[in-house]
């Protein structure tokens, strides 16, 4: 497939790296699933279902990191509100799963979710209509973040809000959404959010098989997303985007309407984040306004920084590693883990400006010697 593109635009190494990453990801996730399903529990090689769910969560977050990397690492737009797109996607999926509970809720109401019953709502609000269809929910989990990103990005980029200003208003956006979703009147379950899901597409969410399948699904989605990002960033479009990062004014002088490119990247990235959220919710079993917290978005940016931005697998590695560290540290040093995490962020930013992959000597995409501009 790659060969149908103009060869000259990618180096051999890049394609190797792409295939390397994809095959590694798929083989590893396949192997992990195999070890869970077919290797007996007693064997040391057996992977517990707990680990599978955890890995599934990491991979969802890796998709989020990927989406941040393409706006930040490739286009130079630092969004501190990507958590909002992620959470919106999650809510869309959560609403579907909520409706799937049907009359198995604690109050046994045939259509209304539990929280609506005890808030004395008599019927499903209009914006919940349609979410009983899985495909509609999935579609919405991509569409809603996309539309929000389009409106927001179009307004912002058209009036040339850049850099720090953009970061701060994206932060305000996600903060406003968080406050809004906290309100019980909104009809999204308030602080408790949506939880207690039973099944997805008719399969029991708590069964091991479904967990493994969800994990595999996530791995596939990550692979596809990775591949798409690669294609996009290596295309002519991607070149312009890189150029915008390095010098937007120059690109504008060359006659490109840079805001269109920026909006396009931003929307694509938001859709990716939304899909990550949709995959995340069935695996962790809860979605609530806490996901909109600005701190979450900042943290996601930090995964990318730790891994190495401007390189697709840098984002993935960063997300998996930091979250893995978090999981271990919160159990190993429940009292001190924030010191470790905080120190990690400080040290990585100061000493590893190109992230962990910088250690291995990989450079962010095409910046290298030609661009002195920091982003």
């Amino acid at each position, binding site marked *: 497939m790659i060969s149908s593109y103009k060869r000259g635009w990618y180096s051999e190494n890049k394609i190797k*790296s792409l295939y390397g990453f994809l095959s590694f990801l798929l083989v590893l996730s396949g192997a992990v699933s195999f070890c869970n399903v077919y290797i007996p529990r007693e064997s040391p090689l057996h992977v517990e279902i707990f680990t599978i769910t955890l890995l599934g969560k990491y991979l969802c977050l890796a998709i989020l990191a990927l989406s941040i990397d393409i706006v930040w690492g490739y286009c130079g737009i630092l969004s501190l509100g990507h958590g909002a797109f992620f959470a919106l996607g999650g809510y869309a999926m959560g609403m579907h799963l909520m409706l799937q509970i049907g009359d198995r809720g604690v109050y046994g109401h045939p259509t209304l979710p539990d929280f609506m019953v005890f808030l004395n709502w008599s019927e499903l609000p209009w914006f919940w209509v349609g979410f009983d269809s899985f495909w509609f929910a999935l579609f919405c989990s991509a569409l809603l973040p996309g539309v929000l990103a389009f409106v927001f990005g179009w307004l912002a980029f058209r009036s040339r809000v850049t850099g720090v200003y953009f970061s701060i208003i994206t932060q305000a956006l996600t903060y406003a959404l968080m406050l809004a979703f906290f309100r019980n009147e909104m009809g999204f379950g308030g602080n408790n*959010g949506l*939880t207690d899901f039973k099944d997805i597409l008719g399969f029991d969410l708590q069964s091991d098989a479904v967990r493994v399948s969800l994990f595999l699904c996530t791995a596939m989605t990550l692979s596809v997303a990775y591949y798409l990002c690669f294609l996009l960033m290596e295309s002519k479009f991607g070149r312009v985007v890189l150029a915008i990062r390095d010098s937007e004014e120059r690109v504008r002088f060359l006659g490109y309407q840079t805001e269109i490119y920026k909006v396009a990247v931003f929307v694509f990235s938001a859709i990716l984040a939304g899909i990550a959220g949709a995959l995340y919710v069935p695996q962790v079993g809860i979605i609530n306004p806490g996901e909109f917290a600005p701190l979450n978005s900042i943290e996601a940016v930090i995964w990318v920084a730790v891994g190495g931005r401007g390189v697709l697998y840098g984002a993935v590695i960063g997300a998996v*590693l930091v979250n*893995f560290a978090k999981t271990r540290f*919160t*159990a190993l040093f*429940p009292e001190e883990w924030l010191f470790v995490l905080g120190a990690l962020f400080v040290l990585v930013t100061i000493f590893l400006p190109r992230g962990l992959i910088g250690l291995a000597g990989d450079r962010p995409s095409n910046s290298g010697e030609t661009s002195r501009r920091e982003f």
Partner: protein
Amino acid sequence: MKFFNVLKQTTMLVAVCLTYPAFSEESETIKVGVLHSLSGTMAISETTLKDTVLMMIEEQNQLGGLLGKQLKAVVVDPASNWPLFAEKTRELISKEEVDVIFGCWTSVSRKSVLPVIEELNGLLFYPVQYEGEESSRNVFYTGAAPNQQAIPAVDYFMNEIGVERWVLAGTDYVYPRTTNKILEAYLLANGVSEEDIMINYTPFGHSDWQGIVSGIKKFGSSGKKTGVVSTINGDANVPFYKELGNQGISAEDIPVVAFSVGEEELSGLDTKPLIGHLAAWNYFQSVQTRENDDFIAQWKKFIKDDKRVTNDPMEATYIGFKMWVQAVEKTGTTDVDAVAEAMLGLTTPNLTGGIAVMNRNHHLSKPVLIGEIQADGQIEVVWETHGTVIGDAWSDYLPSSKDLVADWAKPISCGNFNTKTAKCSGQNF
């Protein structure tokens, strides 16, 4: 190809770390999971409970452990992050293989843990007052249900103080929402007219109370006796009470009864302007009984701070722990099903006198105390129920739940049994 180098190192690191716990010693211990936030917004309340559990474990080990084994605490930090609560529960049960978990504070953290604990058939003791409307086979609720806190407090206001106008102020989340819903229904049923009830919600950690407090003042200046029922959550209380004091609203004019303000919250507060405002709980540190004196002394010794106070969720943790120990001793095993069955009907002396009973709906029978805040940050009892009140999982005042009961004894064995249809609605089992 540097990429593969990075990958190789990373994989090895991950592999080592993932398998690491497998080698940990698996000797003769009973593991007790402690699932309280040690960082983030809820750390302020939850760390105390972590320490309480550790203290109880230490005490039990000094008494010779349980079933001849030592107890071992497994402490994790869910960091006030609700999905992390679910993840950590899974980790505690399936990886650490703990036999019981003491944990959670907020309703949302419990809701997040619930599916996991039911799926993996774990055992959770939940020690905080909450909104009710729930009863799970795997959870024992040792805090107060609304009828063990809110309803008696309103009764006290209505009958003893003669309050005719009501302000229901709360933080916008499920506990205040449900409690206020119940109270509103209760007040209307008791002949209070709708214009005499003012309901107000504020966000978490709200700090600018000027407008709301002056609104309450105006609402209360109509000539009828006015009282405030506060379900304002933790952090927001300090600025709320400060504003009350500064705007000159004294407890004699407009008393405030709070369900989330205990000794611990008061210890971070200058209590002078609060004297006379009320709190409703099942436990106060100021109650003088032998058990309570011992408990307070033990706590101060354990935490090595003479100024630390005790509070209601600590007592709930204490009762839960004692009951679990009893149940394990009774059945001779830590098996969840056996212990859960043995729990029903167990009794433990309350720290405030009387006997707590674990009812068949997984809620406790406890006395309800109403106290006034004193200058030293303690709460002194001014009224208490005769005997104990049975915790009601499903409120009788909400139309959606008035037909529901929870009964985990055979033959019903159901957390939400509809008495009208005689069916166990919802839930998979």
